[in-house]
Structures are given as structure tokens and as C-alpha cells.
């Protein structure tokens, strides 16, 4: 028996999908197949989310399939280069440097519906969009990104970013810019307390809270009055601010040198903007108020409500009802084989950065083609995640790792544990072009 057939539950319409892809299987198996042949298919493919992951997979499938009807659904008219947010919030980039038009990146062969998903009907192979439209699919790619749950912090909302000393780099370019304004206010005040926080959930770009701390420290040191400022970092975890031990140790040691106060097992649960007070819970269940002049808020994150309230979310385990349930290696849904997931929405141990998408998109593409052709899914995502960890304005460490915290350096000439000017230049000058090449499906 075909191993793929044996491993996949039988669904209505599956035979049709196998027939759709079978015609091109022989062609794609030829040595020159990947270079010249586009796999034939008349499958209806729906991609949810027109951000980095959705756009990259749309371009890839558009390039590798002929005859398929590909639809991408995503409301946002602007495409936002989110890795640039920390540079905006650090006063290094203007906010408009990260915004382009979503339409600019979508291939002409793909239909774009500017609407987000509101409901999944996986048994009927349908999704409902917020504009009321219902899309039927033979294959679904979920790339909706993640949801920022600011309101899970009592008294907090995105409207507060940029007011009363509150900053948060995640919400938008405008919020990142407003965060910079608040940091500038702190600096111009000449003294004060800056608090940096971390969420107790999985977050996208887990290095961003650390980068914001480092760049703010850099700016405070440049004033020549560093000792006038108290800088504290609050983490929900025990002596941990980053999940990979080598980088965690590096950051904690550096912060000790830079006199950053580490408050572990403390989770931000409330904020009183008017009195500039934050409420933190601790491991023993107690809560304590902390006053601040500037606070960087990292919101709890999850898959969008439409995903986490559907049966497509993990049903048990630490990611239950929070993230999309997919196989962490082949990126296929564990219960609905015609569904794949890419990007921040997926419930995997690592993989919520743009660099992760760069590695996930080819894996998802290869496995989608195999699925349509009725072949085993052989491509595997190794958890690759990369983060140019800015340790000061002007230098960075190229952190690259995968499942199990294994270091995965891409370049033999760049150490994954050394601070480097070249890595900073790479972050500041080359990552955005690399990201755009990824959107176009070219790397």
C-alpha cells in the first residue's frame, strides 16, 4: 500500500485531489522537473492571510502549479515589514520604510479577496470570511499570523501606546514610532525608570523585547547619564528571557554588566496608565505594583480567534486552543490532511519569525505538491528560526537555531554567538531585501 494513502484518513473529495495531481507526477519526477515543469492541478487552493507567509506561499504555488485556482484572503491593504519595527522604535528608521502595498507582492495568477477569515467549516471544506463570502477549497493553507491580545492585560489597549510612557513595538509601525517618542521623552527627562516586559505565551520575534531593551540601553548610555536611569526587565520565566540557553546566558550576563535589574517569574497582568503603574503577578500568586516612567509592553499572543476557537486548534497540550495544530515537521494539519499551516499561526516549538517563514514556505510548497500528487510528504521543517539579536545600536549577534535549541548557522564565516558589526549591517541593510525576495518566492 502507498505509505501516504495509508497514513491519511479518507475524506470526501480526496480521490478527486489525487486525480488532479496525478497527471503531473511523472513529469515532476524527471531530473529537470523542478526547473522546468509546473505541476498540473485544477485544485481550488485557498490561502488565508496575505502577510509574509501567505504571500510567500502564494507566489511559490503560483510558480509551481499550473491550472490551480489559487485564492488568497487577507484584509490588510498594506504589507508591513515587521522585522523593521524594532528599528523604528529605536529611532533608526522612519515608520513608512516598512510599508508597501499588499497588491504589489501578489502574483497576477492569484485572486485576492481583501477580507479575513471569520469561521472554519473543515468538514465541508469551506471557510467563511468577515465580508460574508464563503470560499470552498480542495486545499487550504492557513497563514493568518498571530493575534495580539493586549486586552488580556487589565487596563491595556493599543490606544494607550504612545501615551503616559507606554510603548509596544508589536502593534504597528505607528505604534513602534510612538514607542520611540516615549523613549525620547524618557531620555529628555534626564532620569527615570524604564521597565521592559515579556509575555508568558509564545510570541512572534521573541528577540524583539530583548532588542528593545538593548537599543534603549544603548541610547541611555549615549546620553552619558546612564546612572540616572533605572532599567528593569520582568520575565514570567525563571531566570530565563530567551528559550535557547546559549543566548539566554549571553543576554543575562550582558544585562548584569549593564546593571539591568532582572525580575523573574513576574507576569504583567495590569496597567494603570494614568498613574504610570504596572501590576505584575508572581509565582506565589501575589501581585505587586511597579511604577515606571517608560514601560515596554509585550502582549500575550495567540492564533486569531477564528483559528483558536475552531476545531483546527490544538485540542490538548500546552498549545490547546491557542495555536494551529499541525505536524511540526511537514506542516500538515494533524487531523485534516488537506490543510497546511505556515508562519506565526502554527503551533510548533519554534518558528515565529520572518526567517522561519523563509524555511517553512519551501517545505509547505513541496509537501502541498506531494499531497496533490498523492505522494508521501518528504520535506521537513527543522524549526529553523533566526533573529539578528541587536545587542547595541551598531552591533548584533546572528542567532540561528532550530528544534531542541540546536544552533543552525547559515554562514561558516559568521559565528552564531559573536557580536558583530557585519551582522548589524546585515540586519539594517540586507534583511529587508532578503525578506522581499522571500515574498516573491525567490529565496
Amino acid at each position, binding site marked *: 500500500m502507498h505509505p501516504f494513502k495509508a497514513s491519511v484518513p479518507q475524506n470526501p473529495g480526496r480521490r478527486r485531489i489525487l486525480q488532479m495531481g496525478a497527471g503531473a507526477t511523472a513529469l515532476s519526477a524527471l531530473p529537470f522537473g523542478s526547473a522546468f515543469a509546473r505541476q498540473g492541478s485544477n485544485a481550488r487552493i485557498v490561502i488565508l492571510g496575505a502577510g509574509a507567509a501567505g504571500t510567500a506561499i502564494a507566489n511559490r504555488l503560483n510558480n509551481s502549479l499550473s491550472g490551480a485556482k489559487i485564492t488568497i484572503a487577507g484584509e490588510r491593504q498594506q504589507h508591513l515589514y515587521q522585522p523593521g519595527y524594532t528599528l523604528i522604535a529605536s529611532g*533608526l528608521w522612519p515608520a513608512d520604510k516598512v510599508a508597501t502595498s499588499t497588491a504589489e507582492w501578489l502574483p497576477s495568477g492569484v485572486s485576492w479577496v481583501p477580507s479575513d477569515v471569520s469561521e472554519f467549516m473543515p468538514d465541508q471544506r469551506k471557510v467563511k470570511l468577515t465580508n460574508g463570502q464563503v470560499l470552498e477549497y480542495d486545499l487550504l493553507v492557513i497563514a493568518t499570523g498571530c493575534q495580539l491580545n493586549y486586552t488580556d492585560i487589565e487596563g491595556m489597549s493599543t490606544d494607550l501606546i504612545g501615551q503616559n510612557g507606554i510603548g509596544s513595538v508589536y502593534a504597528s509601525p505607528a505604534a513602534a514610532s510612538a514607542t520611540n517618542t516615549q523613549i525620547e521623552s524618557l531620555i529628555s527627562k534626564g532620569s527615570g525608570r524604564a521597565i521592559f516586559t515579556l509575555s508568558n505565551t509564545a510570541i512572534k520575534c521573541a528577540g524583539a523585547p530583548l532588542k528593545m531593551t538593548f537599543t534603549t540601553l544603548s541610547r541611555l548610555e549615549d546620553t552619558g547619564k546612564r546612572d540616572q536611569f533605572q532599567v528593569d526587565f520582568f520575565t514570567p520565566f525563571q531566570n530565563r528571557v530567551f528559550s535557547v540557553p546559549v543566548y539566554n546566558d549571553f543576554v543575562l550576563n550582558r544585562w548584569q554588566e549593564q546593571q539591568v535589574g532582572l525580575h523573574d517569574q513576574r507576569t504583567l497582568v495590569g496597567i494603570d496608565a494614568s498613574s504610570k503603574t504596572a501590576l505584575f503577578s508572581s509565582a506565589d500568586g501575589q501581585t505587586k505594583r511597579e511604577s515606571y516612567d517608560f514601560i515596554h509592553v509585550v502582549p500575550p499572543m495567540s492564533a486569531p480567534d477564528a483559528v483558536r476557537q475552531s476545531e483546527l486548534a490544538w485540542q490538548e497540550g500546552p498549545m490547546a486552543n491557542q495555536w494551529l495544530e499541525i505536524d511540526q515537521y511537514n506542516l500538515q494539519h494533524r487531523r485534516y490532511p488537506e490543510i497546511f499551516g505556515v508562519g506565526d499561526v502554527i503551533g510548533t516549538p519554534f518558528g515565529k519569525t520572518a526567517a522561519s517563514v523563509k524555511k517553512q514556505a519551501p517545505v509547505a510548497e513541496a509537501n502541498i505538491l506531494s499531497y496533490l500528487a498523492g505522494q508521501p510528504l518528504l520535506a521537513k521543517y527543522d524549526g529553523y528560526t533566526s533573529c539578528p539579536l541587536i545587542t*547595541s*545600536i*551598531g*552591533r548584533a549577534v546572528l542567532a540561528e537555531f532550530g528544534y531542541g535549541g540546536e544552533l543552525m548557522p*547559515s*554562514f561558516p*564565516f*559568521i*559565528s552564531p554567538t*559573536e*557580536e*558583530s*558589526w*557585519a551582522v*548589524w*549591517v546585515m540586519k*539594517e*541593510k*540586507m534583511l529587508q*531585501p*532578503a525578506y*522581499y*525576495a522571500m515574498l516573491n518566492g*525567490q*529565496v
Partner: protein
Amino acid sequence: MTFEGVITIILYSLKPYWWLLALLLVPLVLTQLSGWKKYGPRPGFLYLLCVVVGIGAALVAPALTMSKLSYVATTTDWLSLLAVAVGVAIYCFLLLSPVLRRAS
């Protein structure tokens, strides 16, 4: 990362700077044309000047990238800086050599 991927990213990175590269090419072409028939010796100070300009460019390169010279630390950093120095020195030589060279 594949070689093809690296080249693709370099081309994407250069995209915003093609105009600058073209702009740098214009004076180079003009001086090369102006020195077309000059076969005389080059003045000795030309070499020193090019080395000084190259080193100067390398010294300001970190500042131009919002960094500091003190952050140049790894072997890759120093090799990158060396590449800047050599590149600028060669450009300077190609630019000034036809102008400063004697006619015969």
C-alpha cells in the same frame, strides 16, 4: 543558504542603490576618456593618496551604517572593512590616474 540564494539577496539589496552605482560610474568613464591617450608615468603621491582615501573610507564606514569603529570585532568584520578600503582605493586610483597621469 545556496549560492543562488545569496546572489538573489545581493541583487535585491543593491536594487535601491543602482542609481548610486551608476552615478559613481559616470565620473569614472569621463576621467578614463579624458586620459585615453596618456601614456606617461603616474605621480608617486597618487598611490599614497588612494591608500589614504581607502583607509579613510574604511574608518568612516561603521559610522555611515549607524555603528561605531569599536564594534568592529570579528574576523568577518575586519575583512569587510578591508574590502571597503581596497574597493575605495581601487576606485580612487581608476578615477584619478587618467587625470594625474602625464601625457607622455
